[in-house]
Structures are given as structure tokens and as C-alpha cells.
């Protein structure tokens, strides 16, 4: 593999994703235009913007989930730890390192234990004791262990919505990724569950790089270190407007459009 080092001024270890001139098309329709962004390691990066602005499409590009749609075409480069994910990565390997949590909790219709063990079992056959340990630590990291430790063999669907979402996070943690992508992880949850997930994200930041898409402005300001604001142009194509430290984006935005979005003038 060839290491691409187009930005020698930035140290590789502090940048997880380095995106340069990224475009994405659904068939003939362009959905993302010229995205340039560096996503920091061990920090929470929030993507905000109105519906349809391409923030979900972009986060799904980061672990190549868009490959599932046959008509998707991309150009430009997304480098993960210096390697182009569309050219130098096998998608399975990439997704093992870049985990994802979805908008709606989507546990498998299996037991809680099997849900967590699903990923590890794919990537090798860990011995039972090791697997038990992994399930336990994953659930502990996701702050779910105390609630489910007595019923690991019960169906995951018997959990509440918030618990299911934390289970999905635990499931992602179990494959031991470096990055966790969260696509509106709290939009289907009640305020209490939302608070727990936010707390969890804050905790996980120490070990993982977290990227979160959210519609909730307060959430972005509460938990994220950096915020990217996306917007949609006349051709219904999404683009990045402003990217920077969260406090600056919210308190002192450079772009007028960011300011009017944050103050609730549109979107």
C-alpha cells in the first residue's frame, strides 16, 4: 500500500479522516459537492444541517455503507489514517475499524449475548471465555451491563428503545473499532434515554473517535468538540458551509448562513 500524505503539515495521528474534494452521486443526481474536512481523533465531531443536506450521506461514506446502493458513484478522496478508503481499503476491514450506530435502534432478533457476539464471531472464532469477557466489557462500556446482566439470553427486542440503542453501541464496541459513526442516534428516543446516550458518547470520546449526525442543535453544542454545518443548494446538492470548533460555530459563526440556521431563521 502507498501512503498518501497530501497534508504533511498535519500530523497523521491527530486526524482520523482527511477528506479532500469528495463528491457523491446517486445515479445522475449529485448529492455531495466538494467536501473538504479533517475529522480529529479522540474527539466528537457533529454534523448539523437541514434535512436532505447530505450529512447522513456523508457519514455513511466514511465507512462505505453507501456501497450497498448500486447507483452510488464517488470521486475525490477520503483518507482514513492516511489511506484512501475507496481505493486502498477492503470495505469489510474498514467497517471493522469504523463502526456505525444508526438512527433507529436495530438489534438483531437474537439474544442480547448473540447480538454483541455477532461481530467478534465474524472476525474470528474467539474462545468462549474470551467472548464472555468481550460481551461483558462492551456492555459495561455502553453502560448497559447492570441492566441486562441477568438476562443475556433474553431477546434483544425485549429491551426498551433506549436500551436497544445502547445495545447497538455495545455491539459496535465489541468489534473494537477506532471510530464510531452515529447517524442521529437519539432521534427515536425519549429525553432520558437521549441524556444517557450523550453521557455515553462523552465517556467514549476518551478512547474513540466519534462522528455524530444530529438534528438537535443543543445536542451538538452540548457534546461535540467540532461542528460541521452542511447546507443544500438549488440543485438539491449538499455541501459543507462551515467547519470549526463547536463554540465558535455556535457563538461566533463566520458564515451568515450558519448564523441564520443556528438562530433558527430557516431549516
Amino acid at each position, binding site marked *: 500500500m502507498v501512503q498518501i500524505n497530501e497534508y504533511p503539515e498535519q500530523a497523521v495521528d491527530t486526524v482520523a479522516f482527511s477528506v479532500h474534494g469528495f463528491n457523491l452521486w446517486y445515479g445522475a443526481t449529485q448529492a455531495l459537492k466538494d467536501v473538504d474536512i479533517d475529522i480529529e481523533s479522540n474527539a466528537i465531531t457533529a454534523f448539523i444541517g437541514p434535512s436532505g443536506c447530505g450529512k447522513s450521506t456523508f457519514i455513511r461514506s466514511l*465507512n462505505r*455503507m453507501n456501497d*450497498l446502493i*448500486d447507483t452510488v458513484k464517488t470521486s475525490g478522496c477520503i483518507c482514513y489514517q492516511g489511506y484512501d478508503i475507496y481505493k486502498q481499503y477492503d470495505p*469489510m*476491514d474498514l*467497517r*471493522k475499524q469504523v*463502526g*456505525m450506530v*444508526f438512527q*433507529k435502534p*436495530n*438489534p*438483531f*432478533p*437474537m*439474544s442480547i449475548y*448473540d447480538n454483541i457476539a*455477532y*461481530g467478534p464471531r*465474524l*472476525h474470528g472464532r474467539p474462545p468462549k471465555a474470551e467472548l464472555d469477557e468481550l460481551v461483558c466489557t462492551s456492555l459495561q462500556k455502553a453502560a448497559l451491563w447492570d441492566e441486562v446482566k441477568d438476562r443475556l439470553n*433474553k*431477546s434483544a*427486542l*425485549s429491551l426498551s428503545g433506549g436500551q436497544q440503542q445502547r445495545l*447497538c453501541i455495545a*455491539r*459496535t464496541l465489541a*468489534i473494537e473499532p477506532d471510530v464510531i459513526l452515529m447517524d442521529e442516534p437519539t432521534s427515536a428516543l425519549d429525553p432520558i434515554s437521549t441524556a444517557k446516550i450523550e453521557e455515553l458518547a462523552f465517556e467514549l470520546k476518551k478512547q474513540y473517535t466519534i462522528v455524530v449526525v444530529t438534528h438537535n442543535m443543543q445536542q451538538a453544542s452540548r457534546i461535540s468538540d467540532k461542528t460541521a454545518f452542511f447546507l443544500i443548494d438549488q440543485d438539491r446538492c449538499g455541501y459543507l458551509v462551515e467547519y470549526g470548533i463547536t463554540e465558535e460555530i455556535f457563538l461566533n459563526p463566520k458564515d451568515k448562513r450558519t448564523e441564520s440556521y443556528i438562530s433558527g431563521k430557516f431549516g
Partner: protein
Amino acid sequence: MTRTAPTTFERRRRRSDSVAVAMIKIWAFTAIVILIVIIGYIVFKGMVSQSLQESQIIPTFSTPDQSLVVIANKKSGFHSMPYDVLRQFFDGRSFSLRRITHVNEDVKLFYETGLKSDISEYLMLDEKSFQRSEASQLSASEVLKHVSANPGGIGLISKETALPSNVVKLQLEDVVLAVHPSVTELLGNIKLSKIDQQAIKPLFNGEYTNWKELQGQDLSIVVVTSLSEVRQIPGSVALVPYREAFLAQSERLQVLSSQTRRNFTLRYIFEKPVEMGKYGGISTIIGNTLLMVFVTLLFSVPLGVGSAVFMVEFRANKRLLSIARTGVDLLAGVPSIIFGLFGLLVFVQLAGWSFSLLSGSMTLALMVLPTIIRTSEEALLSVSPSLKEASVALGATKWETIIKVLLPAASPGIVTGIILAIGRAVGETAALIYTIGSGVDFASGPLSSARVLAMHIFLTITEGQRMDRAFASAMVLVFLVLFINILARLSARRLIRNGTN
């Protein structure tokens, strides 16, 4: 706000709503009633067989002073012994009980020492018949012992003694209706040849006065007691022993009796068929049916579910997909007899498998394929795409996602499809007529002929003319389908237990 009376339009709207609800209820109720009637009728006919019998011997009537006591083993199923049946046995013309009862046993005759002349006189038989029937002459106690040991044992003794528990005394029916020839005469397009069993008692109680009332000639009924009187008085009728009437060559009226017997017995399930299913049970046929279903599923399930996965997962080629789907729909609409013909040409002749389990099962596998493909496709499409995403996001390949997430999540629907397929396969006849053969033995290998239940029903009616047997088999078939259904449902529940809990 004040409440206002509903407008005419509103009233009409509500009325039409309640009419619609009532209609739906009536339809649903009718459908359920029809189902219950059909299944109930099959079960009733399967459990009980009613047959009209015509014979000279009047059932349940016997002459009072009989010198012979007929005993039989309880397993034989006999409760009474008509004179002519006993005569057939001792005449050596009938060797098996199965023509008279549902028991498939050879007849073994025993009689007490010294009764030979009595028997030959009573049954009007000669020495030759005795030899033919291989009846054994034994002491009274020996007769009892042998009858109790042989399920097909029938014994004759001179006087009633204490019987072992599994031996019963049979009533010997030997009475006929002797009439003056004028009663059975053909006159003016009217001829009386038989009367109903139910009419005999009223006839002798004097409730009828004219033969006209029994669809006979205009002749008054005279009830007499002896054969000599019958011969002289026109319109006379008497109850006389068969033997006397036979020897005197007197006119006799046939008696119509309806016989109600237990049709289905446990023996019927566990015994082998005899004479191509005319007698005996259907154990091997049930076995063949299960075997056939198994072989059919062995081929159709992997192929069908595989096709469904292909059609769901590889949707990129729209043209190919639409061709495949049209093909499947067309295949589902093809009449089963066409599949039978195809099986005859391809499996029986081209492949050279002849009429065999394999030919039949392969034909059925093709026939049920569309059902399995369509239901599996529906089931797979109904699995939330978010599960697929979750699996892929954890680094699973397409194949792993299909095997570990998609198929388990779709399994209830797939199992439903398989149940439907089993239902079709078990009940299929037309596709099997030319392919599976009709041997009643348990299939010894894939290339041996194997009669299955649906075919058995078809064949017992067309060849054996045994309506009662067909209904007993039909009942077994209904319960077999029910049983398979329950089994499949239970296994489906086990499959999804983790899912729903």
C-alpha cells in the same frame, strides 16, 4: 356547541357501515361453517362406515333351540355369525376374516369331537368340504384353548361352558323370511324381492295388512308359523330356519339391512395393506407419504429459498429479475397434471427412473417450487433493511449477512411457505399418477414404486371400489396435514423464540 341531529347523509353512512360489518361477519361465519362441515363429514365417514347389505339371512334373528354353540376369539371382531358365513368357512371357500370383518387374520376352525355329523347336517356339507376347510376335531376344552390362542379362531361346541376372557359366544343367525310365491310374483310391473329389516317386526306384529304397503302386490298379508302353511296360503309369510327353507326350495324375501361399523381403527394405521389396500391397513402408505414429502423438500427448499435470496439480494439486473418473477408466476399457475406429464417424460422416461419415489418427488419438487420461492421472497423482503445495514456495518460480507441475519429473520415466513408446499405435496394426486407408481410396499429405495395417501384414496375408489377405505385414508390424510402443520409451526416458533420472546 350544541348537539345536532345527524343528517340524512350521516345516517345513511352509518347504516351502510353496520351493514358492511354484518356482511363480513356472515361471510366469515359461513366460511368457518363450511370448513367444519367438510372436515366433520370426512372424519365421520372415516370413523364410521355405513353399508347397505342385502341377504336372505335376517340379522339378529336366530332359531331358539340350537344344538351348536359358536365361539370366536374377541380379536376377530365378530358379534354374531350369519349362517351363510359359517357355511362358507366350513365349506373351505373362505380362508380369511378380512372379507367379513376388518381383521386381517386367517380363519382357523375347531369343533368338538362328535359334532361332525351334526355340523354337516346343519350346514348341509359333505366330507370333502370338511377336508377343504382343514377344521380340527378336538375335545371341548382344547377347542376353547385353541380359539383363545388364535385371533382367527372359530370353534363349535355342543353346550355353553365358561369361556376364557378373550373368547366370545356368537349368536348364530339362521332365520329367513319364507313367503308364498304369489308375494314375489311379477305382476303389472310390480315385483317385491326385498324388504327393509326395520319392517320385519311391524310385519309380524300385524301392523301391515297388505303387501301393497311394502311396495308389493295387492295381496293381504297372512302371518303363519310353518313352512307347510306358507306353501298353501297365498300372501302368507313365516320366519323359518334357513336350512328348512333351502331344502324345501321355498320362496324367500331378501332383507335389506344397513350396517354401521367402526371404519377407522388403530390397526388401520399400523397394519400393512393387503390386496392393494382393499383390506388391511395403510402403514406403509403413510411411511411412503412422509418419505415423499421429505425427498420433495430436500430438493425444493434449498432451490426455492436460494432463488428467493437471489431475487431479493441481487436486484440490480431488473430485466433478469422481471423475467425470473414472471417465470415463477407462470409456473405457479400450471395445472399439476401438466407437471405429471413433464415428470413422466423427463424423470420416468428420459432419466430412466421409471415409476418411482424419486420421479414422483422430483415432479412435486418442481410443482411446489413457485410456492416456496414466492413466500420466501415476500418473507425476505419484509425483513427490515436496517438489520442488513447493522450486519454490514459490523463488517459482515453479503453472504454472512444473508446466512446469519436475513434468513433467520425471514424464517417464520419461509416456514409458512414450506408448510403450504407440504400441504400441496401431501395432497397431490394428478402429478403423481404418471410418476410415483402404485406399489403398496414401503419404498425400499429411491427408485422403487411408492404409493402415497392421496394416490391410495384415488386408487381404492377407482380400482378397489372401497369407499369406506377411501374415507378412512382421507381422514388420516387430513390429520397428517394437520400434524405436519402443527409440527412446522412449533419449529418456526422455536426458530423465532429469540426474536419475539
